[in-house]
């Protein structure tokens, strides 16, 4: 519910800003948003069903044992490594995360997983980063990022302690 309100509010405010600048700008943006929506909605449906079936096939206790709330630092490390090897865009990665959470993965472990996936995204590295910035820069960035997913996971543990007690 909160997400719907925030997203609706932002879309409304930006629409007003764009409308004041030029109605054409708003029309252009709405058309491109519609295009992207039509393009992504069926993929999203397929990805969610796929992730759901896989979630049913993977035994819940396996997810809980390796990356559950109680798996602690080990779980954070495992999630960091696995997340770094997810070779897909957000369409599949986020439904997978939803299924992982539903099958008993812990929040800090999931944060480490998403951080690793978003920092190391292999397809982006090959398609954009290496061709545009060169391999030397790409490797320097990846080496500099290796410690980040576990740090994000540990910080989530700290935040949850502070927030939920």
């Amino acid at each position, binding site marked *: 519910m909160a*997400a*719907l309100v*925030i*997203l609706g509010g932002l879309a409304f405010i930006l629409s007003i*800003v764009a409308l004041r600048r030029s109605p054409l700008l708003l029309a252009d943006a709405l058309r491109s948003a519609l295009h992207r929506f039509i393009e992504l909605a069926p993929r999203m449906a397929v990805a969610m069903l796929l992730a759901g079936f*896989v979630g*049913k096939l993977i035994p819940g206790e396996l997810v809980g044992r390796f990356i559950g709330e109680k798996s602690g630092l080990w779980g954070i490390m495992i999630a960091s490594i696995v997340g770094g090897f997810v070779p897909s865009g957000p369409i599949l990665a986020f439904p997978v995360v939803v299924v992982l959470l539903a099958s008993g993965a812990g929040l800090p472990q999931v944060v480490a997983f998403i951080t690793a996936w978003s920092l190391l995204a292999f397809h982006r590295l090959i398609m954009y980063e290496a061709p545009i*910035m060169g391999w030397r820069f790409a490797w320097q960035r990846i080496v500099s990022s290796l410690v980040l997913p576990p740090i994000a996971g540990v910080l989530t543990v700290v935040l949850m302690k502070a927030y939920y007690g």
Partner: protein
Amino acid sequence: MVEPGNDPGRYSIDWRALFLDRSMLVMTALMFAGGVACWMLRGRDAFFDSFVSDLQTFLDVLPKMALAFVTAALAQRLVKREFIVRWLGDRSGFKGVAIATGVGIITPGGPMMSFPIVSAMANAGTGRAALIAYLTSWETLGFQRILAWEFPLMGVEYSMIRAIASIPLPFIAAWCSMQLPADPSPPEKADG
């Protein structure tokens, strides 16, 4: 992944490309295989249980995604690439890293937007640590990914916890990159 938002010339919907794209076909094939495996190994009830709850999640996410795409499309048109590059300029040191982090958060669009920006920043003399901070920030804190994917799918509370836990990351990445040996002729970049 196609990003039609960055391509203002293409609005007619190509239905063939929509459904016959390779990643879509692979995902659909995997979905059917997963469905069959689920039915056979876990039973009919597990299959329908998964099917119905996933469709419910999908319908719940759909309006949020639509709003997020409108926000993203507007942001891409209101935040100009030149503005982002000029803002960062050739600043370096802690201040450069802090500004790079802030700019990374507000950079809309996918890799088609961010990597040309990084390339232009490198040409403008932005240091390696600031470039790495920028990319780390865009990847872990970028508002567009949070709005378009995390808010609809994971909820606001989870998104906020993850975002707050990620605020130090660009600074840590920049610090790590400063420990790496210096480039022979900085800033190193590829031609073309």
